[in-house]
C-alpha cells in the first residue's frame, strides 16, 4: 500500500518574495521543466464603509486541510502531466499588500502547468477549511466568505 505522505502547506504570516525566489531557484536543477505557472493571492486593503481592511487573520482546520490538499494534489497529478506542484498558505495575520497564497506548478510544456495552477487555485478556495477574518483599520473585524 502506498504511504500517504502529508505535506504541510501552512506557514506563519505572509509569504515573502524571498521565499518565492528560493522556490523558483530550487527548480532550476530540474532541466526537464520548461514552464512554471505561479499564482499569488495578495491581501487587498478593501474599503468597508468608513474603514479599510488592514489585514486578514487566517485560521484553519489544519488536519482536515492537509488531508484534503493531499487528495486534491493526487487528483491534479492524475489529470495533468505536471512535474511538480507546491502550495503554501498563510496562517495568522497577513497585512494588506502581502501574499497569503502561493501556488507553484511546473511541467514540460506550458498548457499543463497553467491548467493545473488554475484548477488548484479554484479547489483550494472552494474545498480547504480555512477562514479569513478581515481586520479593519478601526480594529473591528468581519469574516470573509469565498464566492
Amino acid at each position, binding site marked *: 500500500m502506498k504511504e500517504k505522505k502529508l505535506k504541510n502547506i501552512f506557514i506563519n504570516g505572509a509569504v515573502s518574495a524571498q521565499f518565492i525566489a528560493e522556490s523558483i531557484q530550487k527548480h532550476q536543477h530540474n532541466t526537464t521543466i520548461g514552464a512554471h505557472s505561479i499564482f499569488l493571492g495578495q491581501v487587498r486593503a478593501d474599503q468597508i464603509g468608513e474603514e479599510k481592511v488592514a489585514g486578514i487573520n487566517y485560521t484553519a*482546520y489544519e488536519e482536515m486541510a492537509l488531508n484534503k490538499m493531499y487528495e486534491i494534489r493526487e487528483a491534479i497529478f492524475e489529470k495533468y502531466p505536471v512535474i511538480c506542484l507546491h502550495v503554501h498558505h498563510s496562517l495568522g495575520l497577513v497585512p494588506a499588500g502581502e501574499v497569503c*497564497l502561493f501556488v507553484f506548478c511546473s511541467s514540460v510544456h506550458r498548457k499543463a502547468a497553467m491548467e493545473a495552477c488554475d484548477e488548484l*487555485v479554484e479547489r483550494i478556495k472552494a474545498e*480547504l*477549511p480555512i477562514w479569513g477574518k478581515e481586520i479593519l483599520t478601526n480594529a473591528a473585524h468581519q469574516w470573509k466568505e469565498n464566492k
Partner: protein
Amino acid sequence: MKVEILLFGRLTEIFGVTHLLLADVADTDAVRNRLEEQFPALKQVKYQVAADQLIIHGNKQLTDGMTVALMPPFSGG
C-alpha cells in the same frame, strides 16, 4: 459516549471556545439540535458539518471518540 466538537471561523465567537465535548449524542442531527438549543445564534449561521473530517450531507451516526466539526463557509486563498 462522548464526541469532540470543533468550532471554526465566526462560530468561535458565538460559542466563545474553539472546542467542547458533548455526551450522549447519537448522530450529527442530535449534535446540531443540542447546540442550536444551547446557542440559538447558531441558527442564523450557515455552516457545514464534518464527522472525522468527512463532510456530512444528511445525518450520520456517531460513535464514541468521534470528532464533529462545525464549519462556516471557507475563505482561504
